[in-house]
C-alpha cells in the first residue's frame, strides 16, 4: 500500500486476469467478517473491556477516557497488533498507571469468551465452501486477534467449516508476520503448491486483505458483506467487489465453477 492509503497495483489488469480465469486453482479466505460475523461479539467485548478499564483506573471523565482508548486501539490496529493486553497496558501507561497483569489476562479470557459466544457464520458460507471445494483448493489465512494461542482462534469453534480447508494459517504468531505482510500469503500458497497468480483471496479489510493479497501477487476479491454493520473505506478500485459470498460464482475469475446449489445455514 502506498503512503496515501491506495493499493499498489503491481499485478495484471483485470481483463487479463479474467482471461486467465481457467488457471485459478485455489480460493483462499479471511475469517472474520468474511466467513463469519463477529462484529457484534467484538463490539460487546470492547464495551465490556472499556468499562472494566475505566472502573479499575478510577477515572471520572468517561468521554476523555474513551477518546484515548479509541486512539490507542486505532494505533495498534494500524500496526496489525491486536493483542488486547498490550493495548490495555498502553492505555494504563497513558494515565501513568501500572496494570495488574493477572487482571489483564483474566479480562482477555473474558473478552474472547464474549467474542466467541457472539460469532456466527454468514448463512451462505458453508454452502459456498462446499461448492468451491469440488474444483478448487480451499485455504484460510487469518490474522491472530491477539488470542493467547492459535488453537483458540474462533475458526476452531466451527468444525463443519474447518474440514474444507487444506491449510489454515493464523498469521501474527509463531514467527509469521500478520497480513498485510506477504509472508503469510506466500507460506499458504507454498503449502497448497499453487502459484500466487493461480489463487483468489477473499477478504473484507481493504488494507489487510485486499492490498495484502494484491501485493503478494494473488487475485483479491473484496467482500463488503451486506449484513456486516460497519463502514467501508472510500477507495476507487478495479478489484472485484461482492456483497455476499455466493456472488463469487458470478465473477469471471471463477468461470467454469459448477453452478452450485448453495445450502444456507441458519
Amino acid at each position, binding site marked *: 500500500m502506498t503512503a496515501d492509503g491506495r493499493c499498489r497495483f503491481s499485478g495484471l489488469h483485470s481483463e487479463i486476469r479474467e482471461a486467465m480465469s481457467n488457471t485459478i486453482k485455489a480460493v483462499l479466505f479471511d475469517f472474520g467478517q468474511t466467513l463469519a460475523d463477529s462484529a457484534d461479539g467484538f463490539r460487546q467485548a470492547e464495551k465490556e473491556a472499556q468499562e472494566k478499564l475505566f472502573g*479499575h*483506573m*478510577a*477515572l*471520572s*471523565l468517561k468521554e476523555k477516557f474513551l477518546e484515548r482508548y479509541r486512539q490507542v486501539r486505532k*494505533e495498534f490496529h494500524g500496526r496489525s497488533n491486536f493483542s488486547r493486553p498490550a493495548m490495555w497496558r498502553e492505555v494504563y501507561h497513558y494515565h*501513568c498507571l501500572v496494570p495488574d497483569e493477572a487482571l489483564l489476562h483474566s479480562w482477555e479470557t473474558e473478552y474472547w469468551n464474549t467474542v466467541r459466544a457472539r460469532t456466527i457464520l454468514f448463512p451462505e458460507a458453508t454452502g459456498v465452501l462446499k461448492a468451491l471445494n469440488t474444483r478448487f483448493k480451499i485455504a484460510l489465512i487469518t490474522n491472530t486477534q491477539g488470542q493467547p494461542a492459535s488453537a483458540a482462534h474462533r475458526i476452531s469453534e466451527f468444525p463443519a467449516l474447518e474440514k474444507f480447508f487444506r491449510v489454515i494459517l493464523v498469521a501474527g504468531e509463531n514467527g509469521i508476520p500478520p497480513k498485510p505482510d506477504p509472508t503469510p500469503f506466500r507460506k499458504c500458497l507454498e503449502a497448497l503448491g499453487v502459484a500466487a497468480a493461480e489463487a483468489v483471496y477473499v477478504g473484507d479489510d481493504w488494507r489487510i486483505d485486499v492490498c495484502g493479497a494484491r501485493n503478494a501477487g494473488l487475485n483479491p476479491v473484496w467482500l463488503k458483506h451486506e449484513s456486516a454493520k460497519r463502514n467501508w473505506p472510500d477507495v476507487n478500485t478495479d478489484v472485484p467487489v461482492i456483497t455476499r459470498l455466493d456472488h463469487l460464482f458470478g465473477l469471471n475469475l471463477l468461470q467454469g465453477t459448477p453452478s452450485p446449489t448453495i445450502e444456507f445455514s441458519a
Partner: protein
Amino acid sequence: MEDDIKEMYTKAKKAFEEYQYWPQEKVDEVVQAVGWMWQKEAIRKVLARTAVDESGIGVYEDKLAKIKTKTLGTLWDQRGVKTCDLVEEDKARGIRKYAKPIGVIADVVPCTNPESTICCIGLSTLKTRNAMIVSPHPRTQKSSYLTVEYGREALKKIGAPVDLLQCIKNTSQEKTQQLMSHCDFAVATGGAALVKVVYAAGKPAQTVGAGNVVSFVDETVPDLQATARKIMLSKIANNAASCSSENAVALHASIYDKMIECLKKEGGYLCSTAERETLRKCMWPDGKTLNRDIVAHNAKFIADLAGIKVPETTKFLMVIGEKIGREDRFSGEKISPVLTVWKWSDFDEMLDRVEKILEFSGKGHSVSIHTESDERRVKLALRAKVGRVVCNMGHTAANSGGWGAGLPFTDTLGCGTWAGNISSENVNWKQFLNYTLVSMPIKEHIPSDEELFGDYLKKWGKD
C-alpha cells in the same frame, strides 16, 4: 522507519563517538548554544502552549517561567565546572582524576514537565559529552519532541553532531522499554511505579520517587501571612504538578487557627467533614487509586468535578488530616492543589507522625519547615528519611533549584535507597560521568596500630 530504536541508538552512538573527545571549551559552547535556544521567549511560548494543549494539565504561564528558570539554572550550576579530561589532582596521594562520558543516555520524561525535564537532563548530558535519546510520555509527546528538535537546531548551528539529542516521535511503552535496554544508561523522571520498570531493563539508571512534602510551620515564625503566601504560591504552581509541591502543612497548635485564617486569605478553602468525604470519593473513586482526571488541574475544576461549591477565587483546597496510611489517602501524594492540614503541639510527636506519613508515601523525597529554630531544622534533618529539608521557603521554589536557594537546579530528584534510587541528590551533570583515576607511586606509609586504633585501645585495651 520512524522511531526504529536500534537505528536511533546507532545514530546517537555515532554522534557520541565524535563528541566524546571534544575539549571543555567546545563542550561549554555546545551547552550555551542549546541553553540559549531553550530559554528564548518565543521558543518557550511554543513549548509551554503545546504541553498544556496536548495534556490538558498544568498552567501555561508557570511552564513558560519554569522552562526559563530550569534552563538558566542548570547552566548556572555547571558554569566553570570541569567535565572533560583532567578534572582533579591530589598530588599527596599521587592521583589524577579524568572525567569520561557514559555514552547514550535514555531519558524517560513525565507528562507533568515534558519540556523542562529535557532542558535539565539535556544540558547535563551535553555538558558531560554524552548523547541523549528522549522517551516522551504519550500524553505530551509533541512538546517533548519539539523541545528536542529546538535543541538539535542549536547543535546544527554550531556544527555539533545533531544526533546528540533525539526523541521518539510516536511513543509507546514497548519503545520505552526497548530504548532503555539499548542505551548505556537510563534516567527516568516519574512516579514510583516507574522505578521497577526502569531497573527491569537491566541498565544502570537514575530514578526518582514520589513526593509527599509535609511543611512544618511553628510558633516562632514572625510573619504567618507571608509564610501562608509562600506556601500558596508554591502549592498552586503549575497546578501542583511538581513532586515538590507541598502536600500537607503541619501547624503548631498555638498558631493553628491564625495560620488557617492566613491560608484562607491566600485562597485556601477548608473543606467541611462532609465535603472532605465528597472530595475523597472523587479523588480516590476506588478508595486507593488517585483519580488521574484531577491530577495537575486547578482547585475549582476539582471542586466542580467532586460537586463541592467553592468561591471562584479558590486557589487550593484544604482538608483536615485524620489518619495516616491507606485508610486515609489524604495523608499521601495528591499531585493536585489539595493540602492536608495537621496540628501538633509536641515537635517530637509530629516527627513520629511525619515518619509514618513518609513511610506511606514520599519516602526519600523532601520535607519543609518554617521556623526560626535551627535546632528544629537540624532535628528534622536528622530524623526524616529524605534527601532535602527546605527551610523558610516555598518548597517548589527551592527544592529543585531556585535563585534564592542553593540546591542544584533539576527536574529529577533522587530519593535515595529509601525509594529504590541509587542517589538522593538533585540529578544534574554529576550523575553522567565515569572517572578514570591515574595512580602514581607515592612514598609508602603503612599505618601503625596507634594511628588506626589509638582511641579504641586507650579506652578498651588490647584484649
